[in-house]
């Protein structure tokens, strides 16, 4: 479910790209200094986006620093100094990665087994720092696993735990009040819903072959025999239209809540990601060849 929220790189100004990288490297460094070097593999673009977003609505300014990176031993690189948003993104990276891997194991993907003990010490530390968040994440992922086990036949319902998860990730960190909190919740909820839905569409073909749960399969093709992988033209069109509506409408809601917020900094990067990156990703996944074949 990660790697979908990325910037539209060709449209980024160089200074914006450098700032994005500074956030990415800043979180990496925060993970390294707080949790060690091994858990750095947990770093993801999506949570970098979260850090940039949280910075943008915070009252405090960010501070940039020139620092060494283990991958570039001879050159100092600019990165964002550890602050609330960076630490939070670092912690969430670890917690989410840990639970994801645990879920993989639960789904009997054994290749994840060796990674878990490597991540555990970091997870324990992150959990201590963000106890409530960890509990909420676990609850939501448990609920998701339960829905998957029951072969939930409604995409909206299956998406709900993850949407609520993202909503809480945003509201817990931002600590807004009243109306603003509601907008933040909507923002997080819709980003989460978009992520879950687009991931489901992206994995659809694989999940048919692998017999994994997929909400789109459950809703539209409950009788499809596993491993056949053949979906007739009418069904493909139906799925395409439905998913096109849901993804675009959800993105529209993301934009609406984003525009209702008071963005104090990083606006151009966020604009690029929300209007450019996420839009392109949606188009790319919806245009997938197998969805649009005319045979």
């Amino acid at each position, binding site marked *: 479910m990660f790697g979908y929220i990325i910037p539209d790189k060709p449209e980024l100004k160089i200074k914006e790209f450098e700032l994005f990288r500074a956030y990415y490297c800043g979180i990496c460094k925060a993970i390294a200094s707080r949790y060690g070097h091994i858990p750095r593999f947990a770093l993801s673009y999506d949570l970098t986006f979260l850090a940039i977003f949280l910075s943008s609505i915070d009252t405090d300014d960010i501070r940039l620093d020139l620092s060494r990176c283990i991958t570039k031993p001879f050159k100092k690189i600019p990165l964002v100094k550890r602050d609330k948003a960076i630490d939070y993104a670092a912690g969430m990276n670890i917690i989410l990665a840990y639970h994801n891997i645990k879920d993989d194991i639960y789904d009997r993907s054994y290749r994840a087994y060796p990674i878990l003990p490597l991540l555990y010490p970091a997870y324990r530390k992150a959990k201590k720092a963000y106890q409530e968040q960890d509990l909420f994440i676990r609850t939501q992922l448990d609920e998701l696993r339960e829905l998957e086990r029951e072969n939930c036949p409604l995409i909206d319902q299956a998406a709900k735990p993850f949407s609520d998860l993202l909503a809480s990730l945003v509201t817990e960190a931002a600590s807004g009040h009243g109306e603003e909190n509601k907008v933040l919740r909507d923002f997080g909820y819709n980003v989460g819903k978009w992520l879950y839905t687009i991931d489901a569409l992206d994995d659809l073909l694989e999940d048919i072959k692998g017999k994994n749960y997929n909400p789109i399969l459950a809703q539209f093709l409950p009788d499809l025999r596993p491993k056949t992988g053949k979906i007739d033209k009418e069904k493909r069109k139906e799925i395409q239209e439905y998913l096109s509506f849901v993804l*675009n409408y959800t993105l529209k*809601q993301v934009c609406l809540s984003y525009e209702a917020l008071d963005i104090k900094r990083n606006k151009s990067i966020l604009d690029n990601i929300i*209007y450019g990156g996420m839009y392109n990703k949606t188009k790319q996944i919806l245009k997938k060849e197998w969805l649009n074949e005319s045979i």
Partner: protein
Amino acid sequence: MNPYEVLGIRQGASEAEIKKAYKEKVKKYHPDQYRNNPLAGLAEEKLKQVNEAYDMLMKGYSTGSSGSSYNTNQGQGSSRSQGSGTYNQADFNRVRQYINMGNIGQAERILNSMTARPAEWFFLRGLLDLRIGNYGQGYTNITRASNMDPTNMEYRQTLNNLNSTSQGYNTYRTTNRRDSSSDICKICTTLYLCDCCCECMGGDLIICC
């Protein structure tokens, strides 16, 4: 366009006659009848004309004696039966009020307690779904309401708005980004075309082209 001709009725037909003719035409040109049919495009065109004709004629009449429109039967507790069981229009009005106030729980409770499920039920259920974040369900329910009652303008309008919303996101990015390269393309192309037109007429806008 002559709306009477499109609907196949005489000039000065009564409201009831117009409605009857409209329903028949909608049934005739409904997209469901033309699935996998090469004439689907033509049917769609015809249906559009039928809708326009109906709109034109109904403007002359006072709004709503079609029971499913919101403005009528307010608080009059009229009962109608549809399918299994009866439903009360007043209940639907209360649901609408709750939705407008943002009281989703109460609205849901009333809808869930109803046994009869006419088009209005699906429409209101769809609105609720959109409110609580179940966009796919909302879209399905509102589409269903519109299919069950194609004469209802509110359902049709809402569905059109939803469809344009999801297109609308695409226009979002173009208004938020200035893509200067395509502007230059537009300017050059426009000038060239103007020059061609000018030359056709005997003049010459750009001498070197």
